[in-house]
């Protein structure tokens, strides 16, 4: 197999890696916010449930969660595993990353000075207006660096989908390497992830720059 062939085959896997990556962000970013808000709820039970959710998902291996979500339904209920493993894989990544995002959001929300809420309240803003107009934009600005870290980690973590044999980039790289008894496919895989993250880093850098028109 020529290098070009390897690259072409990997590019097919890249599509699936991208699917995991973007779908996870799409769902985990808002879900994490919901979890963060529940965690900050003044109802003790709701806040406790959110805390347990966060601690379990951050305290157990992502690989285990992938296996649990993909094969769990079969073992528990005898539901056959769907042919399209993208769904369980994205679910597993989403619930896992939502827990991490929730912690980041919470730290950002906690870092907001109380005076911002008070100024908004005196001006008559509703709670919802205060959150979306005053608090959230500043929170995003504050947490962007940590969010970038997490997103870079997600790019690399997508490779864990190999544990459930989902045909993403890493799985394919590994398969080629095994069949060719060559190390080259691993190097190509590494380059693919590296370039992916370089793009992520560039985009996030631009976003951060765009948001830093004011000092905090």
């Amino acid at each position, binding site marked *: 197999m020529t290098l070009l062939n390897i690259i072409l085959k990997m590019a097919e896997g890249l599509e699936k890696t991208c699917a995991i990556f973007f779908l996870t962000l799409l769902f985990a970013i808002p879900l994490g916010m919901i979890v963060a808000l529940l965690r900050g709820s003044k109802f003790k039970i709701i806040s406790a449930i959110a805390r347990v959710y966060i601690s379990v998902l951050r305290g157990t291996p992502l690989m285990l969660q992938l296996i649990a979500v993909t094969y769990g339904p079969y073992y528990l209920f005898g539901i056959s595993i769907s042919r399209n493993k993208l769904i369980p894989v994205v679910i597993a990544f989403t619930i896992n990353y939502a827990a991490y995002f929730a912690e980041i959001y919470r730290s950002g929300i906690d870092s907001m000075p109380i005076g*911002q809420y008070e100024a908004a309240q005196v001006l008559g803003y509703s709670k919802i207006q205060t959150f979306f107009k005053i608090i959230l934009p500043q929170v995003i600005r504050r947490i962007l660096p940590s969010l970038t870290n997490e997103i870079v980690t997600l790019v690399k973590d997508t490779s864990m989908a190999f544990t459930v044999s989902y045909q993403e980039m890493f799985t394919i790289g590994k398969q080629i390497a095994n069949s060719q008894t060559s190390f080259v496919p691993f190097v190509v895989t590494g380059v693919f992830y590296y370039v992916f993250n370089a793009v992520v880093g560039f985009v996030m850098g631009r976003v951060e720059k765009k948001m830093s028109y004011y000092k905090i």
Partner: protein
Amino acid sequence: MSVLAMSNIQKSFGSNHVLKDITFHVDKGEVVSIIGPSGSGKSTLLRCATFLETIDSGTIRYDDRNAAETVNGKAVYAKNLNDFRHIFGLVFQNFNLFPHFSVLKNMMDAPVSVLHRNKEEVREECMALLAKMDLAGKADAYPCELSGGQQQRVSIVRALAMKPEILFFDEPTSALDPELTGEVLKVIKQLADEKMTMVIVTHEMPFARAVSDRVVFMDKGVVVEQGKPEELFGQTQNERTKQFLQNYSNT
């Protein structure tokens, strides 16, 4: 007619009894200064008047309507509190401007999105206010680009943009370098000359004396004495007031 009338206000933080049966009113067009030692409850009184703290018992009336009253010994607030919020504005010690909004947006956003007023109309009014306050060139600046004195002036015009009937100030110059207090005090003086109804908590005694129609001296959660500035500063017979003012002139 009183714009604000608070009566028999009780407020405790845990076992700390901070406001002890305070009765306090402000008439239309009146400028009232509140002075008193640290911890006497001045900020708490303003925060209760602006609903940032809830009173334990007592009555808060704005324009002769009850915002809070006491039923069976406990304070009950009106359902439509937000309608009352439009009556007053509050200027904080540390400004609390919205850092992600430009100066103009800081001023315009609440009138437009809270009062649902016409955006162009609000813009014109805000630009006029900025011009009046010598801030015309700063409309598009962000708060972080302004000096402390400018930021506090912006926070004053932000409050004014809501067209409040009464404006509260909690030590508006305490967070400023001494050379910047003048420009803020000048703005407040200007508002006083225009008969804006104001309540000012301040440690600037000469300013309180110059600008106020009435001075209220608070200590340990009670109003010890109140009166015209020349009476209170000039010839008070009250020992506690004397003591406090003496300590002040010594520093």
